[in-house]
């Protein structure tokens, strides 16, 4: 049932992913995160142009059972918001690494990415957490 962890992006310890495309970073939550939340029924995201800081909450993903903050893996300015996911939060469950993306952030400082995990390290983190 679990989807493979894609190798083309970086992960935070709080289970967000970022995919870097030039100066932009697409942000979403991992398959593990959506699995533990259960069916997502509500998403709250910042507006375009808002500033976000690494490690700070940028939005909320709610499932039937839990409210979960989404933390920004990188600092920058919100360039795009996925309106489709606001209207259809189930996309986060169906396609967390694709159509379930949340934001595009214009990255301020690429050095921040050193704090993030690659796919293998993230997989290792999940194995550790499962113990």
């Amino acid at each position, binding site marked *: 049932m679990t989807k493979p962890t894609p190798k083309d992006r970086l992960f935070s310890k709080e289970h967000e992913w970022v995919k870097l495309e030039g100066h932009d970073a697409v942000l979403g939550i991992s398959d593990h995160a959506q699995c533990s939340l259960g*069916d997502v029924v*509500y998403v*709250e995201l910042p507006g375009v142009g808002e500033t976000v800081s690494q490690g700070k909450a940028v939005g909320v993903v709610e499932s*039937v059972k839990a*409210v979960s903050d989404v933390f920004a893996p990188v600092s920058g300015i919100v360039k795009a918001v996925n309106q489709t996911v606001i209207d259809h939060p189930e996309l986060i469950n169906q396609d967390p690494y694709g159509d379930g993306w949340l934001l595009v952030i214009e990255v301020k400082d690429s050095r921040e990415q050193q704090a993030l995990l690659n796919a293998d390290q993230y997989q290792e983190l999940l194995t550790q957490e499962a113990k």
Partner: protein
Amino acid sequence: MTAKKTPLYSAHQALNAQFVEFASTLLPVRFHSEKEEHLAVRQAVGIFDVSHMGEFFVSGKNAASFLDHLLTNNVNRLSENEAQYSLLLNEQGGIIDDLIIYRQRNGQFLLCVNAANIERDWQHISREKRSVGDVEIENASHRFAQIAVQGKKASELLRLLTKSQLPARFHIVSTKLNSIETLVARTGYTGEDGFEIFLSNVDAEHLWQILLEHGQALGIKPCGLAARDSLRLEAGLLLHGQDMDETTTPIEAGLMFAVDMNKKNFIGKDALIKQKARGISKKLMGIRLLDRGLARHGYKIFNLDHHEIGEVTSGGLPPGKDNAIGLCYIAQHKAKIGDEVLVDIRGRLAKAELVRGRFIFDSRGSNHDQTDTKRSTFLQRT
């Protein structure tokens, strides 16, 4: 204390269930998607492991009169094989638990109580029993597994497993399902037709597999606690410990349909008479969000002048619906059904309206007076 496992634990594991600890028991919170599980019950059939629930047997010459004093509803109105929704109150009229009582063939009664309250209920009942003779009580919770089969096609499914007649609504029969000894009750906690099947621990996994197998063509889904919660909320059924507890009375919780005030006496009656005369301070109502968002347990409710008037006790977003729903307590005379109010969702004030706490037949978004329907859910004999 380590969490208990139900006899179905390994069966759930094999289905990749996600577990949660509830009432000191590891139970599936979801198998795949709580949304699909919820809809399976509304449209076809779903099965739930409810082995955590408690089962008490009460027997003996004075069993009926003992229970009639102990519980709020009228036990003497129960025919053989009939069930009744009832409440266990303390002397202050506070709700210790809500339960279903079944009158069995041999003059024995079965009480099905909430898992989280087994110890508290048992303590209360044992203490009350001391002053009465000719009553035997047994806490059989550890011996019994329980599987709930709920949904429009629940009876169709059970008919595949037995030739004998299925019980009528709010009745119980002792029958064999595919050669497994069971007690089949036509009760539930979803707002749909359905059954709650009591059986020995050792047979639980066998029956679970048989149900899944035979239910396949009907669109059966194994369901977890998340779906159980969203279904009961949509049906306007209260959860003890969340929507009411020992500090709430049936008058406040809107449960007086399960209280027979004409009975000579029962524990808590005096307190209810006094509260009726004095008036209540809060009242349970339904709430529907008009803005986006979810109202959750503990969220505060304000009137349009921003005065706090109440608190949400349960909330959720039923699958396929646009507006979140919930149950809440509103301070007496501070607002009424139909009023617009505000819910503080983590600092954001979301618009909502107060409605009757039953959402299930509500396809167009308007909430009709469902008081009578709610009564019939618990099917009281009149």
